[in-house]
Each structure stands twice: as structure tokens, then as C-alpha cells.
């Protein structure tokens, strides 16, 4: 076998393997899409026809409507608060050294490592002690803590990439610190803050394990309501909701890749 042929064969094998792995990663989502259009209540592959009845049921089922509204409240507040707290903290970490900085950084990034059920259980106990068990407040607090590391990371990376001369120039020209922050630093940070907020919002909207512990019936979010439905029924209503979520997420990812550069955000672009 000539070297050129061997190289071609190797490349073919490699890309074949990559394609097979991508099939493994995406086929569950495709099966969800296929099931969501099935006319039957029972699982059947291939589906015996096309129907939108499960979409109709998913969109009119009261539990899901309430849970979706709850989720928007929780995610709206949690991602907003996390953005403000996280961006301010990233600014401190980047600009100042102070006693306890490392400890505070470690505590605020540890929700990445602490199992979500431990965090959720802790906030459940905290909420009970504060008399907030059935309130949005404790759900929002748990979500803020869970998504904060992603905001801090994203804003911190943006801060590192700011040319310090721009802020110096503004200060030398007589701008007050508040004016420098509002007119120079914040506009430059916008992409990092947008990326951080987006990740925080998506993670909060889809968070399940901790939410299962901290939500009550009145405050349950969409994933918790979906879990309850899966345990009671086996019809494809969940496939319809899942399909809507998968399509929305995929479009969002393409848009994020276009405008924010996922490769750059994740620092996986080649040289």
C-alpha cells in the first residue's frame, strides 16, 4: 500500500469514527423529535403517522404553563442578580488584591464541584429555617449560587482582554472612576457579560436536581413539572416539550456561535 493511500485510508477511518460519535451524541435528540410527531400514545418506531396532538396537549397542560411561568420568574431574577454580583466580583478579582480574595473565589466557584443535590438539600434546610420554603426567594437564591461561577468566569475573561490604556486615557483626561466604568469599561465588557448572562439563564431555566429540592408545588419550575409528568404518564407529551426545548437551544447555540464566537468563549479555537 502506498503512503498516500494509507494516509487517505487513515483519514477516512478517522472521520468515519467522528461521524459515528456525533450520531451517538445527537440521535437521542432526533428520536425525541420523531416521537413528538407520533399520533400514538404508545411508543412506536417508525411512527405510524404525523400528528401535532402532543404539542397541543403540552402547550395547554396547566401544570406546564404554570411551571413555565414560574421558571421565567426564577430565571429572570436569578440570571439578573448573578450577572450583577458576578460581574462586580470579576472586576474585583481582576483589579485588586485583598485579604481573603482566594478564599472567596474558591467558595463562589465551588458550586461547580458540590453535587447539586447537596446544594439543593442545603437550601431546602435554609429555606425551612427562614420560613421561606414555599417562596420564590429560596429558589432564586439557590439558582444565583449555582450559575454565579459561569458569569464570573465569562466576565473575567473579557476583563483580561481589555486594553488598560483605554481606561488610563479616560482617567488622564479627567473622567471620574464612575464615568470610566460606565463609559469605557462596561461597554467593552458587554460581550462577556452577554455571554455570561446567556449561559446563566439557560442553566437556570433547565436546572433540575437542586430545583427538585427547593421548589414547592406552587413554585415548581418546568423541569420539575416534566419530571412529575414522566413518573405518572408515558405518552409523548414530554417529547413535544423536549423537542421545543431542543430546537430553541440549538438555534440559540448557532446564534451564540455567530455573534459571541463559542470557540473563543471556550478558548478551543486552533492556532
Amino acid at each position, binding site marked *: 500500500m502506498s503512503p498516500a493511500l494509507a494516509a487517505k485510508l*487513515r483519514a477516512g477511518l*478517522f472521520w468515519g*469514527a*467522528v461521524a459515528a*460519535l*456525533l450520531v451517538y*451524541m*445527537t*440521535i*437521542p*435528540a432526533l*428520536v425525541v423529535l420523531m416521537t413528538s410527531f407520533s399520533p400514538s400514545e404508545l*411508543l412506536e*418506531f417508525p411512527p405510524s403517522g404525523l400528528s401535532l396532538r402532543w404539542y397541543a396537549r403540552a402547550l395547554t397542560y396547566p401544570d406546564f404553563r404554570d411551571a413555565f411561568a414560574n421558571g421565567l420568574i426564577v430565571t429572570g431574577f436569578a440570571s439578573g442578580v448573578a450577572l450583577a*454580583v458576578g460581574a*462586580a*466580583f470579576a472586576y474585583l478579582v481582576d483589579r*485588586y488584591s485583598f485579604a481573603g480574595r482566594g478564599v*472567596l473565589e474558591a467558595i*463562589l466557584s*465551588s458550586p461547580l464541584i*458540590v*453535587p447539586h*443535590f*447537596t446544594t439543593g*438539600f*442545603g437550601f*431546602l*434546610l*435554609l429555606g425551612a429555617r427562614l420560613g421561606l420554603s414555599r417562596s420564590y426567594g429560596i429558589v432564586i*437564591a439557590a439558582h444565583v*449560587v449555582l450559575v*454565579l461561577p459561569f458569569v464570573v468566569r465569562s466576565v473575567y475573561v473579557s476583563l483580561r482582554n481589555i486594553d488598560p490604556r483605554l481606561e*488610563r486615557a479616560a*482617567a*488622564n483626561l479627567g473622567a471620574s*472612576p464612575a464615568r*470610566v*466604568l460606565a463609559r469605557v469599561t462596561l461597554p467593552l465588557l458587554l460581550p462577556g457579560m452577554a455571554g455570561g448572562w446567556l449561559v446563566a439563564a439557560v442553566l437556570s431555566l*433547565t436546572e*433540575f*436536581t437542586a430545583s*427538585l429540592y427547593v421548589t414547592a408545588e406552587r413554585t415548581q419550575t418546568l*423541569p420539575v413539572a416534566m*419530571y412529575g409528568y*414522566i413518573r405518572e404518564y408515558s405518552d409523548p407529551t*414530554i417529547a413535544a416539550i*423536549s423537542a421545543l*426545548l*431542543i430546537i430553541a437551544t*440549538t438555534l440559540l*447555540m448557532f446564534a451564540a*456561535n455567530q455573534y459571541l464566537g*463559542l*470557540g473563543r468563549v*471556550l*478558548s*478551543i*479555537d*486552533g492556532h
Partner: protein
Amino acid sequence: MSAADSLDSFMQQRPFFLAFLLPAMFAAGLFLTALAFVLQYSLHAFIPGSLEVGGFTLDNFARVWRPIYLWVLLDTLTISLVTALATLVLSYPVAYALVRTRRNSVRTLLVVLAITPLFTGEIVRTYAWILMLGSDGFLNSVLEGLGLISTPIALLYTRLGVTVALVQFSMPVMIILLATAIAHVDADCERAAANLGARPTTVFWRVTLPLTMPGIVSGTVVIFAWTMSAFSTPQLIGGGKVLMISNLVYLQGLSSFNFPFAAVLSLVALVLALGALALIRPATRRLEAEVAPA
């Protein structure tokens, strides 16, 4: 006043210091308080039928040593280890392709396909695997349609099914970590090896792979720790037949309302996750020092 002076005085005022610090401290305080409650409950006696706890005791911790709970711990560790290793092997080619492809469209497609599963949420992903693995599910239907099997094979409610789903969930994170490592490999090292006559496979095994070892080690450990705290997959795909520590916490806490023992189990899970990551810290540091002397 020179430019340097004005900058110094600007930074010395440390504008916004307290205003930016206090919210972060408040968030950290909330989190620590929540964890402190878990610790507090773990040290108090369970009173059946009551959410109030009794006096101080260490009995809850002793209970972990009963064989039934040790088996669950062992299962949790085994499933996590197998998942981490399988994820590593399956993610490397995708990460490599993602970084090395010259076509932008291919890269965009790979990034989006690889990363999207990360953001659809665990309930959607877990439900998808219920559809895949059930006895009337996609896989059994395909295999029956091809005439490869005559009766459905059991995949749902098995360790294999749980692991297959966990690996799929873990691949996006592993791909990100590996791709970062591969993107930072100096292409000159690979070119030098090739110029000296190494064949492409030799270059990969002797140059590229060793240079990405820090990413490999940290990725495997992160997935190991991550899988140990997986909940919805063992809960729904395991269906009570495959129990991991997260399912025990749920059973004890939200079904039996034994908050003290649930607290003990969630602390055990926390310590295992922290332990795995702490174990690997020195190893990653040494590897990074060896690989990147600059």
C-alpha cells in the same frame, strides 16, 4: 502630574471596592450557611415522623457502614469510573477533529452539535434515553427491524443503560476540556517530529497525546466527580434498580423525610467529589510543569 501618577492615584482610591465586594460576600455567605445546615442536621438524631431533630449524635455516620449502603457507594464509584474512561476515549477524536479541521463550516457544526446537549437540561436528555432504551424503544425497534434480535433486550433499568446515557451527557464537557488542551499543543513540535521522519500515527502517540495529558487527566477526573453527583439519569433510567448515592439522598430526604441521614449521605457525596479533585491537583500541576516549561 504625570500619567503614571494619575493612574496610581486612580487605582489607590480602589473605587467601588466595598460596593462590589459585599454582594459577592453575601452570596458566599448564603451558600456556606446552606452547607452548614446540612452539617448540622447530619449530627442530630432522627425522630421518625417529625422534621424536628433530636440531640447530638454520630449514629447517622455509623449507619453509612451498613453493607446495603456500602454497595450503593461502590456502585456509584464503579459507574462513575467506567463513565469517565469511556467518555475520554469517545471524546478525544471529536475534540481532535474540532480543533484540527480547516473548514470553518465543519468547525461550527462540530461545536454546535457537541455543545448543544450540554444546554438542553438533564430532564430532556434523560427522557430522550428512556425513548432510546425502552423495550419498545428506538434501539430495540431497530434491532428487531434488522432481524438481529427476536425479543427486546433489557437496556432500561440496567447499569449498561445508565452508563450509556451518562457517557453521552458527559461528552460535551470532556470535548471542551480536551479541545482546549489540543488547541494549545505547539504545532511546531508535531512538525519537527514529522520532519525527523516520524509517521503520522507515531507523531500522534508520541507527541500530541503526551502534550495533551493535562487535559486528559483533568477531564477524566471532572467527569468522574460530575457523574458521582448525577441524579436524574440513575433515577429515571435506573428506575430504582440501579441506585447511586444521589438516589439514596432523595429516598431518605424527600421520601422518608429522614433529613439527618440524607444530610450524612450528601456530605459523603460532597467529600468524594472534593477528594477526587484534590487527589488530582498535584498530578495535574506536575504534568503542566513538565509539558509547559515556559
